[in-house]
């Protein structure tokens, strides 16, 4: 069984996030606002090397970039 989203480089969690975002956005206005708050994510992260903290980056953009890279890497 092959998954289309797996071929696109998405992880299962990312796939879940996208799917749930779609569901949340299609809700009615008053429920949608409450529901969309549950999908918010505003984290920053940093990679460490040899005991030194690297650059602090936004997690969401970094995740997207990493998955895009993963996708192009697997397709080529």
């Amino acid at each position: 069984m092959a998954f289309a989203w797996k071929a696109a480089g998405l992880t299962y969690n990312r796939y879940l996030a996208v799917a749930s975002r779609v569901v949340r956005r299609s809700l009615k206005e008053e429920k949608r606002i409450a529901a969309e708050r549950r999908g918010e994510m505003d984290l920053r992260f940093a990679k460490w090397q040899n005991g030194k903290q690297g650059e602090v980056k936004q997690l969401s953009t970094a995740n997207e970039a990493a998955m895009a890279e993963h996708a192009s890497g697997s397709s080529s």
Partner: protein
Amino acid sequence: MLSRAARPALRAGAAAAAARPAALNATNAATYATLREIEGRLKSIRNIEKITKTMKIVASTKLTRAQKAMTESRTYGQTSNTVFENAETKPLEGEGKKTLVVVCSSDKGLCGGIHSGMSRKTRRMLAEKPDLDLVILGEKCKAQLGRSNGKNIVLSFAGIGKDVPTFADAAAIADQITMLPTDYTSIQIIYNKFVNATSYDPVTVEAFSEEAIAASPNFAAFEIEDDTLSNLREYALSNALFWALAEGHACEQSARRNAMDNASKNAGDMINKYQILFNRTRQAVITGELVEIITGAAASEEG
């Protein structure tokens, strides 16, 4: 300047009874100064009490929400754990395989020793197994462990603990962890277990690797195809993370509430002490002035 000015008042506060004769003996100018100092300190302590009281109320309201989120998230964690319990999954015992430790703290302090409790637990684990890799969620534990065990840290996350953690947070962290280049046989998540409103325990929860799941004795009962196995593992990891984050958040709020409650109590005690000292000093000054007037009057009558 400020610390020097505050010192006599502090000393006086520490030994209120002993300070009384000293205040009487002191010259008038000095007594007025301490009176004003004590007043200033009283004011600042009152302000601190107001702040800690407000923070306590804020933490209390946040705590009810956090506890609700915790009970909800427990379902996620326990449901995903049921799978592994039924499959009798055990962590693989292998040499040369790395273990990843995820420490779930938060960004904010002023909540007693829950962050340092977790750092201590991590250090204990590091003492047993020095080649662990660390992923740290939250600034507090990052600052504590970054100083002592900076070499073990591979990732750190910030921005946790502003609000009740969402599943999106957990999923994004799980993604970043799965994308780490090293292959970990087991991932251990350290979080504060909520025992009751006043006690928490740093405990670990295990998230298994693909091989460990595949090698579990009862695994065949679930009829999982090989392709979906990695999905299950990713999902289980984010479930466990979500659970740990929510429970840690609830612990933090409850710890903050207790810390602020104690701080308000202490401030109240100090206010009482300083109020008594203030009144005594004021009376001493008045008595001193009266004595002076009477002696002056008596002297001028004689002359």
